[in-house]
């Protein structure tokens, strides 16, 4: 087993195990922190796929942004000042059905897909390619996404500002 395989299995295991913790932890703060390891594992898997830019973006967006937001949300909405932030199990039957359907679809896709093993080669960095594509071929979607985020941000500011002026 070469180093690549060791790293792959290590990070794969980390991702899956922490994903299990996310789902099964009784304490939602624990879930949130376990999610961080899932994101890490995924980022590492991206690295192993020579997708360094995506990996770093994964870290920046999910760990630095979304996860902090989630933890903030968890801390601000529930009773913050006790460690017992417990979650119960709800809607067992619909959830099982839903998960089963998704799992079935995934397994189906695995079997149907024609997997090609690309011969090992020296991979070039992806940054320049992504950059060029973003500002040439996909300039419109990128701009639209930017405008969308701007609108969302202004909306958030408006909500916060209204809250303040009332008090």
């Amino acid at each position, binding site marked *: 087993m070469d180093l690549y395989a060791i790293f792959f299995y290590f990070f794969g295991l980390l991702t899956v195990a922490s994903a299990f913790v996310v789902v099964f932890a009784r304490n939602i703060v*624990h879930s949130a922190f376990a999610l961080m390891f899932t994101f890490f594992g995924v980022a590492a898997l991206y690295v192993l796929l020579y997708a360094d830019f995506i990996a770093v973006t994964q870290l*920046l967006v999910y760990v630095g942004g979304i996860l*902090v937001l989630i933890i903030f949300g968890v*801390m601000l909405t529930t009773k913050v000042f006790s460690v017992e932030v417990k979650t119960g199990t709800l809607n067992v039957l619909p959830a099982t059905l839903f998960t089963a359907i998704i799992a079935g679809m995934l397994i189906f896709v695995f079997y149907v897909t024609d997997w090609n093993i690309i011969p090992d080669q020296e991979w070039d960095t992806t940054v320049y390619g992504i950059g060029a594509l973003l500002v040439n071929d996909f300039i419109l979607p990128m701009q639209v996404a930017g405008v969308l985020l701007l609108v969302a941000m202004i909306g958030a500011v408006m909500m916060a500002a209204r809250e303040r002026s009332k008090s």
Partner: protein
Amino acid sequence: MVETLEQFLPHPLLAIIMHAALPMVIVFPYVLFAVWLERKVSAHMQDRLGPMRTGGWHGWSQTIADMIKMIQKEDIVPSRSDKFLFKFAPFLAFMGAYAAFAVIPFSSEYIGAHLDVGAFYILAVTSVVTLSILMAGWASNNKWSLLGAMRTSAQIVSYEVPTVVAVLSVIVATGTLNLMTISEMQTGTIFNWLIFSNPFLLIAFVLYFISSLAEVNRTPFDLPESESELVGGFQTEYSGMRWGMFMLTEYADMLLVSLLGSVLFFGAWNSPFGDFMSGPVWGVFWMVSKGMFFIFVMMWLRWTLPRLRVDQLMDVCWKYLIPIAFINLVLVALWEMLF
């Protein structure tokens, strides 16, 4: 450099671990030195002498003694805390800080990972420190700690924006995210350094320095700890070596932003005298001295300025730094296009 190591070591994995551990050789002694220096700098600014006894000359081994003391201390975990997260947070914090050193080019011959997205990577991976602080604050089960943790996250998340935009100005000017390439571009005399190549990069540096102060929670932005208000912020309940880990993280973070600043603006490992005193070993020297200089400036500021209030802190970021940073980014780009 990994290849060189592989020749001497029985297994390639060992070589990789060795390679990854090399920045420790700089970070650990640096932290010991920096804590001592902080004491001395503060002492001399305050008409005192600081540590004078331990080890003889100007108390040089004071921090070593303190470290030994801290390791021996009883490991106190509050009974109502979340034990696992409480114990894990300091290590996660240091992991986050240390992981960022992977892409710092310490000399022309040594860089942990020759990553093409180096600058981007540093910004991404330091966000782990935010998480660990949130973790520590929440797990302590102490209201002051949680307030401190909340403040920290709000502060770091906000100040990430001007930091990123200031770094982006350099990226726009150099056209690469690879820190090694950026360093190599500044080889030659002092005038090849990026800070002198473009007047707007000078502004970018000032922005970078201010917002990085906030990123590493130093005065005047040390609200997360703010001893006089929040007792100790997120680290109130910590003691012994776990507290020491946070201390280590803080100083490692300081070194990190200082090194990044010198890579992006001050010629990285390049000697200011052109070819004189340059080379791989001198490179480490120049890199560390530039970093130490900025750390000294940080200490200087810390012992001079009072602390901002939390709303003023946000004002500084959102009303001043971010607009200036964005306008500056456009100006940097314009300058690069025109000249």
